[in-house]
């Protein structure tokens, strides 16, 4: 029954051969949110990895940055069909964060200030594939976009790049996080268009 609306093309969107299927390039940076925006001062900010022994590995803001912040340029792909290519970010590699964390568990639940969660296999966070990002496009991450720090996992749909990152909990099974419980794919590979259940 649906028909094309004469003259409508949505926001300015372009095709590009570097885009995964079903994605279009945008020039702005849309803000998507499932709830109120948490406001966390870096003075109060803390990041925690909880392993299966129940031990907590903690970093304050300064301790996180002291691990070494690097520049990365990545493409990001949102499941709502927009993508940005060659986006400049700064963050701490998860490889550095996990250097002294031992775990037998293969999966991770990322937790955000405000309650959001998303699940990711540990191997998708290591070997240069993920960061705790503190800056984007040359500016400190503002709260709307997940600041002060968010997870950045560009090879998966961007709902996996949890905003307002607070911690990671190791888990033995790939338990679903927020969107994964409500209809979204457990893994989320944009190149295989793994959007929904």
């Amino acid at each position, binding site marked *: 029954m649906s028909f094309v609306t004469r003259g409508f093309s949505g926001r300015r969107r372009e095709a590009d051969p570097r885009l995964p299927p079903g994605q279009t390039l945008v020039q702005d940076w*849309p*803000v*998507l*949110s*499932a*709830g*109120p*925006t948490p406001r966390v001062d870096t003075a109060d900010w803390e990041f925690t990895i909880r392993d299966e022994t129940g031990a907590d590995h903690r970093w304050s803001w300064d301790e996180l940055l002291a691990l070494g912040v690097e520049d990365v340029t990545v493409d990001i792909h*949102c*499941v*709502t069909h927009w993508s940005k290519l060659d986006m400049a970010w700064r963050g701490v590699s998860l490889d550095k964060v996990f250097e002294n964390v031992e775990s037998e568990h293969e999966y991770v639940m990322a937790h955000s200030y405000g309650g959001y969660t998303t699940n990711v296999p540990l191997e998708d966070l290591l070997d240069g594939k993920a960061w705790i990002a503190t800056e984007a496009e040359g500016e400190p991450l503002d709260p*709307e976009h997940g600041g002060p720090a968010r997870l950045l996992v560009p090879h998966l749909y961007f*709902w996996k790049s949890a905003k307002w990152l607070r911690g990671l909990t190791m888990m033995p099974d790939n338990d679903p996080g927020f*969107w994964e*419980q*409500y*209809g*979204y794919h457990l893994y989320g590979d944009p190149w295989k268009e793994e*959007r*929904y*259940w």
Partner: protein
Amino acid sequence: MTHHLDGNVLAGALSEVFRSDVTAARGRCGGCGRTAPIAEAMVWTDAPGLVARCAGCDRVLATVVDTGDRVILSLAGLSAVELRR
């Protein structure tokens, strides 16, 4: 935009799932027990799905994900819904 709308905006999405408009129906939050019309829920629409939260405690009451050929509805945060006949 990170502001929210309210449950009135759920009417369209939920009309595919329920026989009659449920925005006037009252829902009980499974978290704090607040019972109010679903139209009064705080609803975030700029997200991969519609997210309705309790106006009292912010807990997620319901989500609606439209995949194109399917609608995936969760009412998990509502402990009860009351509809007038």
